[in-house]
């Protein structure tokens, strides 16, 4: 194998190691059945492997991968994605060990139901902020739209949830507690 190929392999291995859990988490939070995450994760990293030269360096890779995973998820939901031959063991292991989000307690189900009333774009903006801890401008990279559009959608999503839950979501940004996000200009 050439040195160039070795370098490429090493680059991918490092990127994979750095981002596997992040991408898996992103996908697990969005699939109905945990084992379905295996296909999306496999497809996402397969795209990255094929297009490694397009993957940004360092932590920017995460945003790029989220963008790919998001589109792969969308295709899966529309029934357009093929069942990948890769990741069979991951599928098997996930089915065996990961908790199923559908088994949430009532309070969580209430929130889940409320979130489900959001339009897909608004929901994704909100979840990227709350769960992935992204700033509007990072979300904009994932969704390929402007940061201002993200802020608008975030505001709209919060308004809807406020109406649906009769309660305020937590403030945007770098939150205290278990989801330490980057506050900055979040939500504006």
């Amino acid at each position, binding site marked *: 194998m050439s040195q160039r190929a070795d370098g*490429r392999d090493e680059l991918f*291995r490092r990127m*994979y190691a750095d981002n596997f*859990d*992040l991408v*898996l*988490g992103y996908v*697990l*939070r969005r699939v109905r059945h945990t084992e379905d995450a295996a296909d999306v994760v*496999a497809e996402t990293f*397969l*795209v990255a*492997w094929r*297009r490694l030269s397009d993957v*940004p360096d*360092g*932590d*920017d890779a995460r*945003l*790029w991968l989220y963008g*790919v995973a998001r589109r*792969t998820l969308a*295709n899966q939901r529309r029934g357009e994605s093929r069942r990948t031959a*890769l*990741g069979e*063991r*991951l599928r098997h*292991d*996930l089915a065996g*060990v*990961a*908790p199923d989000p559908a088994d*949430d307690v009532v309070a*969580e189900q209430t*929130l889940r139901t409320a979130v489900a009333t959001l339009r897909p*774009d608004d929901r994704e903006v909100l979840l990227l902020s709350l769960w992935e801890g992204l700033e509007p401008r*990072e979300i904009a*990279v994932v969704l390929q739209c*402007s940061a201002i*559009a993200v*802020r*608008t*959608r975030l*505001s*709209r*999503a*919060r*308004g*809807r949830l406020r109406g649906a839950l009769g309660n*305020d*979501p*937590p403030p945007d940004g*770098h939150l*205290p507690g278990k*989801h*330490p996000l*980057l506050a*900055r*200009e979040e*939500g504006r």
Partner: protein
Amino acid sequence: MTDWPNPFPHQAVCDLPLSHARVELLEEIMSTPVLDQVDRAAAPRRTPPRWLAAAGAAAAVVATVSIPLALDAVHEPAGRPGSPAASGGVAADARRAVLDQPGWTVEHVSETADDGQIEYASGGRRLSIMWRTGALYQTFALDRQAIGPSKAVELLGLPSRQWAYDASDHTTIRPVQNGSTLEVRGSGMDEAAYRTLLGELRLVDDAGFAAALPESVVTPGEVRATVARMLADVPVPLGFDQAELGISGFNTRFYVGAGAVRAVVCAWVEVYAGAPAKASAALSGARDWVVLQELAVDGSFAEFVHETADLMRSGEPAAAVKLQSGCAAAETGVSRG
């Protein structure tokens, strides 16, 4: 406050016993041929700007940190709002800060009664100045402890705390003075450059802030006239009062326009319950509204209007339109979450 459960917190994902599966998948993927041009449509088209690397790195790092920390480790405010010690000779309404440096331009400004932000950019460097009501000081200072150790620095004359997200991304929180606290974050520059910029900041009162802004920013005194112009070709329901929009502070035009249009649309959503044809007709011409063309330049806000119009056109029940449009809990002013 509503609990926001994360069904799969990051640490829980990391703890999953998937080591064999992840290695197997890696090898499977790397055994496939490399086809540089496939799946292009599935990937983002844009490469994130370099400054995002810093923020991304910070997010990735802090996401794995267990947070609980003692509040007493937070730098305490130097004084209480309104106290002589806290005021330090600073004008009571000097709660904002600005940067006057050649090459730095104002990217956006937004403000509510309680908080606000101005963001500057210069090439790949960004400086965000955020002011907040003093009641939020402890919340943010405690939260920033999760970043890591902090340094004692002086910011605008007060002992403050500085954290480093990484070598090119720093933030500093200034304690409460005159009822407000400041946070300044600089990205895309090293600490020395960041600290230099901190030294160039100056506190400003309302007049000073207005003077430091580009003409394009809408001042409180300009809101009414600006909204009137923005809504000139927008049909509004009988009784709609622009004075009740609740837009306050200094804002770039997008926020003023978005707040005004949102209020109009939500007013029509109210009308829709009793006069669906009238409301639907009012929004049917939204694609021609000049203000939406301006807002569309900055994002997809127009989608909100068009999708609401589509809901009405398709005869959705009033309650569904209200919920799906986001008007169920509509605020009449600029809503920033």
